[in-house]
């Protein structure tokens, strides 16, 4: 059973450098200058799971990403980890997309790739953190999906059981292929690429598709095609005020309740 496996990945600012990130007060966007980019951490787990599935059943893994030209770096790292093919969806018209306008071109690109059996995504990205692109992509492709996956087990060539994390436990969900899952970090430990794999990946060409390659009208993608628009972003400001209430225990309790009511906390 040779499987066609697709992994969707995103290049994001390095989470270890998040303390250096600031917001542009005019544009309302994240200032990324000087912050190194990495593969979204959960997407690395998706890549690893795709490679494990390929090792078990044979097949081909294609990594796909939508982003600016430098997102090729993330795809090169995916190639170094062991994926077979990489495609970058890169077009100025795709910029500024919300989750809908991200999932839609991804779906069209996956259709263009041809047959697919399994699609894997990280559950969410560290920058947007919406967790919506995976499920939306499944809807566009009209296939079932399960989010928050921490383990998978194939029951036959065409079906699998996945373990889905929920509060205080997990669900076991049976799925037929083709289907999509979004994974959590508990699912595996991503491998490190070897030096030889890095050297091979650095020399590989990465296909780049624009809107024209996917027959996408420019008014349904990018900022223009996004049904949601960000109207403002705000940095969280934590202000702490200290107030000491004195008196006997009973008095302190009474004064504290009164004060909390005044502040609207009770």
């Amino acid at each position: 059973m040779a499987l066609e496996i697709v992994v969707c990945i995103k290049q994001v600012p390095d989470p270890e450098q998040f303390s250096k990130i600031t917001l542009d007060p005019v544009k309302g966007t994240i200032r990324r200058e000087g912050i190194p980019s990495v593969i979204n951490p959960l997407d690395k787990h998706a890549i690893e799971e795709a490679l494990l599935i390929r090792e078990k059943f044979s097949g081909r893994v294609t990594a796909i990403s939508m982003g600016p030209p430098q997102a090729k770096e993330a795809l090169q790292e995916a190639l170094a980890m062991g994926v077979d093919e990489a495609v970058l969806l890169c077009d100025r018209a795709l910029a500024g997309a919300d989750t809908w306008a991200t999932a839609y071109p991804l779906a069209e690109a996956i259709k263009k790739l041809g047959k697919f059996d399994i699609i894997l995504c990280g559950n969410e990205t560290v920058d947007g953190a919406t967790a919506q692109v995976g499920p939306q992509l499944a809807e566009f492709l009209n296939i079932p999906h399960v989010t928050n996956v921490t383990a998978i087990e194939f029951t036959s060539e065409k079906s699998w059981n996945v373990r889905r994390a929920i509060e205080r436990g997990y669900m076991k969900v049976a799925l037929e292929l083709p289907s999509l899952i979004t994974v959590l970090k508990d699912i595996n430990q991503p491998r490190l690429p070897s030096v030889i794999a890095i050297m091979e990946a650095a020399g590989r060409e990465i296909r780049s598709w624009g809107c024209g390659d996917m027959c996408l009208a420019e008014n349904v993608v990018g900022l223009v095609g996004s049904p949601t628009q960000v109207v403002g972003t705000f940095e969280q400001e934590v202000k702490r005020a200290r107030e000491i209430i004195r008196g006997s225990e009973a008095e302190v309790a009474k004064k504290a309740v009164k004060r909390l009511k005044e502040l609207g906390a009770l």
Partner: protein
Amino acid sequence: MDFNFTREQEMLRNMVREFVQKELAPRIPEFDEPEGEWPYDVFKRMGQLGLVGLALPKEFGGNAMGHVALMIAWEELAKVSSSWASNLRGFALPAYAISHYGPAWAQKEIVPKICRGEMQGNMTLTEDVGGSDMGAIRTTCLRDGDDYIINGRKIMQSRYSILDFFCPICRSGEKSYTFVIVPKGTPGIELGRRENYISAMTKTLPVGEVMFNNVRVPKENVIGEEGKGFRPVLAAVGAIGRLGGAGISLGLAEAAYEKALHYAKTRHLYGKPIIELQVIRWMLVDMETRVETAKYFCYYASWLLDQGKKVSEVAKEIARAKVVASETALDVCLKAIEIHGAYGTTPEFGVIQKMKSALDQITAAGSNQVMKRTIADAIASE
């Protein structure tokens, strides 16, 4: 002029960083235990990732990624574990000499195993008469038919107790020196006392004496040519030993600077973080500038080798990188300790360990005085 690393060098740095953070950092207390089994699994893992053969020829199992790549690996390893950075240098030393000078059987049988993390040796050079004045060595290697008979005592030998082979440099006549492979278990090899160096008192980097008592090896074990042993020794010491010392020092200096910077931003005195105090800011400026200076010297010398220059042609640049980086590491570590105050001398803050390792690099692979003599000789003859 291009100051950028290539894409594959950047990916290598990311990989080594991740390896160090995920697989080495959590095990540092274990690696630093004074006694116990040497961590063979880490050597094997470094081989599997391709780090051991990073700059070794592809035909013998290496990756031929070059000396800049090796510098990246030393720098990133040393930020967290100078022991493993030193070990990487140690694995590569005899492998480099054999790869470039033979013998052919060892290129096929030994080097690929080193690259895979399955076999390790060292360059068995230092004696009590000195390490830098190699011409004064007393270990002898005398021809007996098709064999050599080796006698002598070597000191300060890294990983001496776990090596699969030794490569002693020996006196084979008046002004004649021969470099030989001696496999472990050859009759007449005796391990002496373990030596206690300030940064080598761990099970990961045991150092000690090795004695050769009438040790017989076939003439096929000569690295390079009989009587011309200095050639492979000096090439490997330059490209791997000295540049390794420079790279390890660079990593140590960067790590100490990062720790000091973080501490200065978070430690409050007089109602504000101490980075707001001018005296601390000035210290950090000096530290950062020295680290960046050392970085340029280290990568420049490595880059020259990648451009096809011979080690002998860039001896000055290599020596300069080693002097600048090791003196930088010592200075930056000391300043980092001062910025931490008394905490800087406690192991919990991790700066004092960097200082200990930095001290080692001042004298390792040729003292800085010898490095300066090399630079002086080059300047005088220009």
